[in-house]
C-alpha cells in the first residue's frame, strides 16, 4: 500500500466517476447535473494523466487532459446559457419539468 501505482489512481477515478454519475442522477437542479458532468470529466482526466505517468512515459495523456478541460469549460459555458433559457422559459431550474416532448 505504500508504493503508489497505477491501480490506486484507477480505483480513485472509478469511484469519482461513479459519484459523478450519482450526482447527475440525483440532482434535479440543472446546474447539479453540470457539476456531475465535471466530476465525471475529472475522473477521466485522472485516468489519462495516470496512464501517461505510469504507462506511456510521454505527455500524450496530458494533451488529452488539456483538451478535456477545455471542452469542459466550453460545455459549462454553453450549458449555463441553455439553462438560463430554460429558466426564462419555465421559471424553474428543475430539469424534471423540462418534459414537454413527453406527450
Amino acid at each position: 500500500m505504500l508504493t503508489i501505482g497505477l491501480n490506486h489512481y484507477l480505483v480513485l477515478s472509478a469511484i469519482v466517476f461513479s459519484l459523478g454519475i450519482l450526482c447527475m442522477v440525483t440532482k434535479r437542479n440543472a446546474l447539479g447535473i453540470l457539476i456531475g458532468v465535471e466530476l465525471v470529466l475529472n475522473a477521466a482526466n485522472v485516468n489519462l494523466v495516470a496512464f501517461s505517468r505510469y504507462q506511456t512515459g510521454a505527455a500524450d495523456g496530458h494533451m488529452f487532459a488539456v483538451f478535456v478541460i477545455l471542452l469542459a469549460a466550453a460545455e459549462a459555458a454553453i450549458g449555463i446559457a441553455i439553462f438560463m433559457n430554460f429558466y426564462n422559459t419555465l421559471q424553474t431550474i428543475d430539469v424534471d419539468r423540462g418534459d414537454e416532448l413527453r406527450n
Partner: protein
Amino acid sequence: MQYQTALALGVVVPLASFFFLALFGPRLGKPKSSYVALLAIGISCALSTYVLVNWLKLSTPERTELTASAYRFDWGTLGSMPLTVGVKLDSLTVIMYFMVTFIAFWIHFFSIGYMEGHSDEVDHVSKYHRFFTYLSLFCFSMLGLVVSSSLLFLFIFWELVGLCSYLLIGFYFDRKYASNAAIKAFITNRVGDFGFILGMALVALYLNTLDLDLAAARFAEQFHKSAEGPAVGIFANSYTLFGFSVASLMGIGLFCGAMGKSAQFPLHVWLPDAMAGPTPVSALIHAATMVAAGVYLVARIFRLLTPEAQFFIACIGCITLTITALIAIVQTDIKKVLAYSTLSQLGYMIFGMGMGAWVAALFHLMTHAFFKAMLFLGSGQVIEGCHHEQDMRKMGGLRKKMPVTCWTFFIGVLAIAGFGLPGVEIGHVKLGLGGFFSKDEILAVAYERAFNIPELKKTDAAADDAGEHADASNANMGVASPFRLASDNQPAQHAETEHSEHDAHAHGDHAQGTPQKMAIAAKLPAIPKWMFFFPIAIAYITPFYMMRCWWMTFCGKPRDHHVYDHAHESWKMFLPLVILAGGTFFSSYQMFRPLIHDAAVIATDSSTVVAIDGEAHVLAEAGGGTMIMLNHAPGKNPHDWLKMGVGFSWLIGMGFAVLVYLRGLGLADKLKRMFGPIHTALEQKLYFDHVYDAVLVGGTVTFGFVCGLFDKIVVDGIVNMTALLGKFVGVFTGRQLDMPVKRGDWGIVDAIANGLAQTMLDIGSEIRRPQSGRIRMYVMITAGSAAVALLVVLNYHRLADGLQWLMSNVGTRVLAANGS
C-alpha cells in the same frame, strides 16, 4: 530595397491603413480618413513603380534568378505536405501589381471627390471612413493575391477580395437592393469557390503541394512518366466525369473559382447587380482588378490545365462574351451597360486563355483594366454630376457641361471598340488603341485553332515547321505588331531581318523544346468554327453599344432638364480620368507587352500544355520554345484575314450607333417595336435570373414541398391505412364474428382481441415510462445498463458456471424427485 521586400511591404501598408482606419476612422472623420487610405495606396504605388522601373532594366536571366530566390518559408505542415508561404516575383506579378496599385491609387483619389457629397452617417455609423477602410482592405487582399506564390494563400486572399466585394456592394446597406446584390454576389462566388476548393484538394491530393511552381513541375513530371510508361499520379486515375479525366477536372475545378470571380457564364449574374455599390468600387473591383483576378488565376494555373480543360474554358468564355454583349445592347442604365461590356471583355480574356492565347489574354486584361476603370470613373462622374441619375434616357447633351469627362469617356469607347487603322503607321507605331491590338491577337489565335490546327494535323508538323515558320514570321512581322519590342532599340527594318534570321535559327536549334511543343500542339483539339465566328460578330456589336452609351449620355439634346441643369464636374474627379486616359495609351503601346512575354517564359514553361502566340515575334524573345508560334501556311495568315474582317468593325459599329441615335430615341424606339420579343428577352437578361429563381429557389421550395407531400401522403398514409385497416378488422370481427350477447359481455374472439390490445397498451406504457423526457432517468438507465453489462462481461465465466451448476443441480433434483 529588395524587390520582393518592396512588394511585400506594399501589401502590408494598406493592411496597416485598414487597421488604423478601423480603429481610429470614426475619430478622424470625413476628409481625414480618406487621406490615410490614399497615402497607404500611394506608398504601395510608389513601391510598385520602383520595382517596375528597376525590373525593366534587368535582363531575363537576372529576372529568372530573382524569381528563383524569392521568399519561401514553410508556414506549417498538413500531413506530409508543407504549406509554403512566399512571394511570387516574376514579370506577371510586377505588372499586375503595378496595374492594381496605379489604378487603385487614382480611384482612391477619385473617391475622395465622389464621396464628398455623401451623407456622412447612417444610423449614427459613419459611412465615410468605412468606405475607405474597406478600400484599404481590398487593396491589401488584391495585392496579396497577386504576390502569393501558393495556391492556398492565393485562395485566402481570393476569399478576402470576395469579402471586400461583398462589403462594398452592400455599402448602401440601408437600401434593400444593394444588400440583396451583395448577398447574391457572395453566394454566387461561393458556388465558384466550391469548385476552387475541390480543385485545390485534387492538387494537394495528387501533386502533394500547393505551391504553384512545384505543382506545375510535378504535374509535368507525372505527365512525362505517364507518357513513357504506366500512368502515374493524377493520370493513373481512370475515373472520369462527363468525359473529363481527373487531371482535367482538377483544372476545371480551379477554373470554377475564376468563373465565379470573373463572372463567367453561368455564374455571370452577380456582376450587373453588383453595380449597386458606389461607382468607384465598380471601377476598381468590378471592372479593373478583382474580376480580372479570375483571368489572373487562370494564367497562374495555366500549367495545370489539360487540353480538355482548356477547351472547357474557351467554351465558357465564348458563351459569356456572346450573350453578355447581346444583353448590353438594350441596357439603359449607364452602369449596367458598362457592367455587361465588362462581362463581355472578361469573356474575351477567358476565351483567349482557353484558346491558349496566354499573352494575348493578359495583354487584353491590362489594356482593359485601364480603359474600363476610366469608363467607370467617367460614369461615376456623370452619375455624381447628374444627382445620382443613372438612366441614360434622361441624360443627353452633357458634352457641354462636362467636356473633360466626355472626351476621356470617348477615348475609353474608342479603346474598347478597338479603334485603329490597319496598316497605317506613324513612325514605327501602329495607329490603334487598346482593344485593337489585344482583341486582334485573341482573334488571331482563335483563327489558328479553328483553321490551322486541322491543317497542322494533316501534315507532318515537325517536318515542315522550321521552314514555313520563318516565312510566316516574315510575313507577319509587318502586319499587326503595333510596336517594336521594348528591348529592341534598333531601326525597324534591320530588326526585322535580324529577327527573322534569328527566329529561324533559334527555331531550328531548339530541338528539345519546340518540336515537343509542336507535338503537343498537334494533339490540341481543333475548336468548332462557331467559336471563332461568335467573337468576330461580337467585335462588331461592342462598338455599337459603347457608342450608343456615349452618344445617349453626352450628345444629342438634353432630354431631362432637371438632370441637365444639375450636371457639373470637378477636378478631383476628372483628374484621375485624364491620368487613366493617358494610361490607356501607355498600356496599348508600351511596356506591358514585352513584360507579359517575359512572364510567359516562366508561367507557361511546361511540356504538358502549350500556349499559342497569335503575334509574330521572335521566339528567343518569348523564351525560346516555351510557347508555340503556330505554323502559318502562306496565305493563311490570320492577320491578313483579320485586317479585313474586323479591322474596321469599330467604324461600322460606332457608325451604326450614331445612325440610330442621331435624332434622339425615336428610331431606337421603332427598332425596339420591330424586334419586340428579342428586345424583351434581352432586356430581361435572357431570363437567367428567372431561370435561376425558378430552378434553384423554386427547386428548393419544390423539394421541400415534395418532401412534405411524401410525409403527408406516404408516411401518414401508411400509418392511417394501418390504423384504418385495424379498425376495419376490429369492426368486422366485433360485428360479424363476435357479437356480444349482452352489453359489457365479451365473446371469446373479442376477449382475445381486447386482451391483446390491452397487453400491447400495457407494454407500450411500460416501454414509454423510461422515455420520460427526464434527463436524469436517461443517465440512470445508461449508467445502470453500462454497469450491468460491465459486470456481466467481467463475470461471464462465473455466471455461466453458476447457471450451469444451477441447471444441472435443479435438473438432477427434479429427476430425482420424479424417480422417487
